[in-house]
């Protein structure tokens, strides 16, 4: 198949500040308990769907003085709320002092993203001010960066970040904003995370492998701008439903439409499911050999709605060459997003 160079379309936007943080504590093996039968039953089902025997979690706010089984469930929300401020500081620092100062005097939009919508009940938030910050809007970020032109929360278990990027693209292209800041987190509340995976399409046959499923809570902050020539250029190219049969071939065929001579990588992320893992592997195997490919959510651990951010984390830390890459995001509802990235190759 002959390819042409993939050029940056006029509607593309630029990622000029980026930070993705993980909890500083260690990994914890999840162990179901007879004290919580409902959670334990969902854990078993999730394991069957994901094709994994064990689940390892890394969460914000784990209190090491508690018993491990309790500590992984009873986490403190303050840790991730503070980490969100750290993530925005780190992302803002990449703009430099002059850039950060200029940003405060421009038209700014904040999009707060989250998988579950309202989690203050699960977080046992003990003040209504914190409940507003957790469920509606992190007020400290609004105040610290003087975001006055629009704020809102976008939610979706897997689609939140992609929806937010699309909204950011609209805001920047329409002139509503000069800068869009996307802040968000993935909270791995065990009962919700397991029931989400338990509800995914079942794949018949096959055994659970002996690998562990890693689920990592992450906090992300992205600063996006329209001005070209800065950071990584992004464009959401397409969303399409996958057919019930020959999905891998269809997926690969769609990827071919967005692969060019300058394409260096194809990345994929998906919910942890045996069926989706197989689908991605089949589709990736048929790519030309010169194109690097990686299932990021398997490699770095699943982070729900923040999985797409793993692509920029990977590009910024590993890739020093300019080029084009394609990110495929499977949403677990039978659809796939395609997002193109053009790296300038200056980062390290």
């Amino acid at each position, binding site marked *: 198949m002959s390819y042409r160079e993939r050029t940056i379309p006029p509607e593309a936007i630029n990622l000029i500040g980026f930070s993705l943080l993980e909890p500083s504590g260690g990994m914890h093996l999840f162990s179901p308990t007879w004290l919580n039968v409902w959670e334990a039953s969902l854990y078993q089902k999730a394991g069957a769907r994901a094709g994994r025997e064990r689940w390892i979690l890394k969460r914000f706010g784990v209190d090491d003085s508690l018993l491990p089984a309790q500590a992984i*469930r009873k986490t403190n929300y303050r840790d991730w709320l503070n980490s969100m401020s750290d993530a925005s500081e780190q992302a803002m620092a990449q703009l430099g002092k002059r850039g950060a100062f200029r940003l405060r005097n421009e038209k700014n939009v904040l999009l707060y993203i989250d998988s579950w919508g309202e989690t203050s009940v699960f977080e046992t938030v003990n003040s209504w001010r914190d409940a507003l910050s957790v469920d509606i*809007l992190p007020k400290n970020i609004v105040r610290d960066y003087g975001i006055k032109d629009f704020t809102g929360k976008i939610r*979706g278990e897997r689609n939140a970040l992609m929806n937010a990027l699309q909204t950011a693209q609209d805001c920047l292209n329409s002139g509503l904003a000069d800068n869009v800041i996307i802040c968000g987190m993935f909270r791995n509340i065990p009962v919700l995370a397991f029931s989400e995976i338990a509800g995914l399409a079942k794949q018949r046959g096959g055994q659970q492998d002996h690998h562990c499923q890693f689920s990592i809570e992450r906090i992300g902050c992205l600063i996006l701008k329209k001005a070209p020539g800065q950071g990584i250029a992004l464009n959401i190219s397409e969303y399409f439903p996958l057919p019930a049969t020959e999905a891998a071939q269809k997926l690969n065929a769609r990827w071919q439409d967005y692969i060019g001579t300058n394409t260096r990588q194809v990345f994929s992320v998906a919910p942890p499911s045996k069926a989706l893992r197989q689908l991605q592997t089949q589709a990736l195997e048929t790519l030309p050999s010169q194109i690097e490919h990686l299932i990021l959510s398997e490699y770095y651990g699943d982070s729900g709605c923040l999985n797409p951010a793993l692509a920029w984390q990977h590009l910024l830390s590993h890739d020093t060459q300019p080029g084009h890459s394609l990110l495929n995001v499977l949403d677990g509802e039978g659809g796939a997003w395609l997002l193109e990235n053009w790296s300038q190759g200056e980062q390290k």
Partner: protein
Amino acid sequence: MKEPVIASGWGMNSAFAADFPALIAGLEGQRSISGKPWFATDGEWQNLRLNANPCTVPDEPPIRSGIDRIREVIDQALKMAQLNASDLAGKRVRVYIAGSGMRGDVGDFIGYLDRNDTEDLMFFPQIKNLHAREFGQDRLAHTLLEAYSLSWPPVSLYCASNSSLAALHLAQSTIAGGGADLALVIGWTQMLYQDIVFLGGLDMLGPKQPQPFSQYSDCVMPANGAVALIIESAQHAANRGFTPQIAISSSVCYQSGAARGSSTFSADFRSIAQTLERAILAADLAPEDIACVMPHGNGIISSDKSESMALQKVMGKNAVPVVSYKGQFGYISTCSGVLDFMVACDALMKRRLLPMVLNYPTDESLELDLLVTNEPRPLAQRNILKSGLGIDGSVIAMVLSACEENLHELS
């Protein structure tokens, strides 16, 4: 140059009215829905340390699912806009779902979050609602995507009470900036146990019917409902031969939490006044060109007072008619902005303003020209100012204008 944006179709349902014509008929007939206590026994609200058993508007049977409600209002809006469901397909169409979205009812499982056994699950099967499907916003988006052959999954946006107006603001700016031809804004509110606890904790609930802009009432009456609004570029409407009647002349959003030293969550009167002024200015109008103002006016004294002070500053004392119908059809919180928007569109199309029904006397010290007569008032000017507030600190103001015959006037 910005692309002119028009409102072409809308629909709604709630306990007050099954559809938009029924809503207008209810307001014309000066009907007011009466609420009922949320809790069955006194012990329940007393245990939660609420001030009273909150007055809320229950749904009329048959109770429909959220998706059925949403599809019903979308179909109403499509019909009014003279569009088919297939017209929502295409990459230049945006769909927003405003509001809290899919959520489990915390009352079903709050006591069993940490501990439950097989007998609990057997005797209290509602514990099983502690499941991601109850929070499945992606599933809701995908259902709409399949039903209307959308090209992009709908965006789920939440900005507290300002959700629907915020989604409309995004949709309007995207179309005006040339990024889309058509947008559908859907709002859906379903009050749950946790909402009552939250609103009760903020002292926003009361045992009786509320009355906006009154010193005798300091509460809202929560109600369920859904709204849908279709907006499009004037060019898109012209291409399909649709004659527009309402244009969105301007839309301005301001986040008051950005102010240095800001420690409050709700906007103060200065932020509201600035936003109203900017909206009028962005529409190339003067305060005298505004026929009527429809503020957020939810019935909370402090927020009503902030809005009154802002209106006095921008429009002058008793200078322009002001209405809020939330005492009549209830407070459909996240949908309330777009619901008022629709009523404003109807007022402009019929060139008359329907009066509010009074449950209690209004506060005369606010110096607002509240329309509490028995007769509708004719509208002399062709612009209405609509504003909304959110507990997130957001203020949104829009100017709606009646279109003249000539579409070029819009630009």
